[in-house]
């Protein structure tokens, strides 16, 4: 179930790395939300379409989002002040299934925030790989370290943690013989594809959170298509807002 609601902003701050975090009073939405789901936010009257942003935390009836400045909508969002109200539709979509004895969360850049909440919801079994472009773009490391049994950092340029990509760090863990019941990944599409391939090679079930441009956000307009393999084995278009954003990696057709 999802609702539309005017939500008061309780906190808005820069997180470093160019990212902003925003907490808002979500009322009944807070209780409904699950890690991996997203909210669809109206960003000013002069923009017709809402913006999808992952939910990445909850405290009481407040929800948290973390976002990058991408264009006019996120710019508008970053210029709000605490006390103002946002028009929010949510929670939307299908989140992560989290079960087993150990789950590896693999996040890249702005893909890390939704994984934080997922990890926080299963702290005993959570381990994280966080990948950033460079040290300057790193976010949430302390919070991940607090939530997870282990947190591994990697940067494209080696300016923090290991040098290299997310899937390489994950592969090192897998190659070292670590056993995971699942991998949950969120980040750029190229990263997700590489992580999915790695997971497949080690036969670890993998879930990925996809992005696509959206209209309604609820499954009615069919614009947020992503190609997947259907029950009958044939390729079809699923919809990120309703069938996702979290998909079983093995169902995703990466090269559309």
């Amino acid at each position, binding site marked *: 179930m999802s609702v539309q609601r005017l939500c008061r902003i309780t906190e808005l701050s820069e997180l470093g790395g160019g990212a902003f975090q925003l907490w808002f009073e979500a009322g009944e939405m807070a209780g409904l939300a699950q890690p991996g789901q997203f909210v669809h936010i109206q960003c000013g009257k002069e923009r017709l379409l809402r913006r999808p942003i992952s939910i990445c935390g909850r405290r009481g009836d407040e929800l948290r989002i973390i976002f990058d400045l991408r264009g006019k909508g996120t710019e508008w969002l970053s210029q709000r002040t605490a006390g103002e109200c946002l028009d929010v539709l949510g929670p939307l979509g299908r989140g992560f299934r989290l079960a087993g004895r150990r789950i590896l969360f693999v996040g890249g850049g702005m893909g890390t925030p939704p994984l934080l909440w997922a990890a926080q919801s299963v702290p005993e079994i959570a381990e994280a790989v966080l990948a950033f472009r460079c040290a300057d773009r790193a976010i949430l490391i302390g919070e991940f370290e607090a939530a997870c049994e282990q947190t591994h950092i990697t940067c494209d340029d080696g300016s923090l943690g290991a040098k290299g990509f997310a899937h390489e760090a994950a592969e090192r863990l897998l190659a070292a013989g670590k056993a995971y019941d699942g991998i949950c990944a969120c980040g750029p599409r190229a990263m997700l594809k590489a992580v999915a391939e790695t997971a497949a090679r080690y036969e670890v079930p993998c879930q990925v959170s996809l992005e696509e441009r959206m209209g309604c956000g609820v*499954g*009615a*307009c*069919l614009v947020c298509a992503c190609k997947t393999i259907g029950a009958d084995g044939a390729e079809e*278009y699923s919809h990120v807002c309703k069938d996702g954003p979290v998909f079983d990696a093995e169902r995703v057709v990466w090269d559309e």
Partner: protein
Amino acid sequence: MNKPNMEVTLGDVKLKNPIVTASGTFGFGREYGEFYDLSELGAICVKGLTLSPRQGNPPPRIAETPAGALNSVGLQNPGADAFILRELPWLRGHAVKVIANISGNTAEEYGVLAEKLSDAGVDMIEVNISCPNVKAGGLAFGTSPDSAALVTRTVRRHSRVPVMVKLSPNVTDITEIARAAAGEGADALSLINTLLGMRIDIRSRRPILKNNMGGLSGPAVFPVALRMVWQVKNAANLPILGMGGVASGEDAAEMMLAGASAVAVGTVCFSDPCAPLRIRRELEEYLHNEGVDSVSKLTGAVKPW
């Protein structure tokens, strides 16, 4: 004053109020049905149906524009049979009229679709000859009076329920197409479908839509839609389902004054999921303030200069 009478008739179909959902923006009703009771609507016009299932176009399928949106869904749908089997019975469980929107590759396909769906018990057929997002069929039928007439004639012959023909705004003279459809026995006309448009990502230098071009809808197109409703009302005296950017009860009133018997709401649901009910309420308030006792009195009541 009592509550205004909100009943309207659209090509012999009685609607409890003039607010209809626009095809393709409302799926088969299930999603928005979680936000409110669908029987509050005048009618639901379902996602465009084809004979065989269609995958639709590759993503991205949507781009934002000033006060509008471009889409290139390309008629993704499970096919008419699957609709009849899996969606129609559920929809029939609500006290709301159901309009089936159909697209064919040939005039014959339109005929088959009309027969199947009217037999299956939809209340009305909306004939889409104006989809800008598919190669065969769609828009091609809607830009020439001859092919519009052919499709209308075929559907009219095969349908047991009233037939409404949906016109494209991408034409030099929409009244010509309207008259062609009227001449072949269309019971109503609906307009407008989307205007062909484009956006480019200036960093990647790629069109934002994978299909390069898409259909423009939303408030941006409202003045064009209103003009066409008015022109068509004057040219072909058929009931009209007016749409294109309706975002408020005042917009709905404007559409009806221009000549619409009922009004469809589409893109604006993306920003306000409850838009159809809000618009209905605002329209009632307008009628109340103006002392109009029946919404159908608005239809065509504009006084041109």
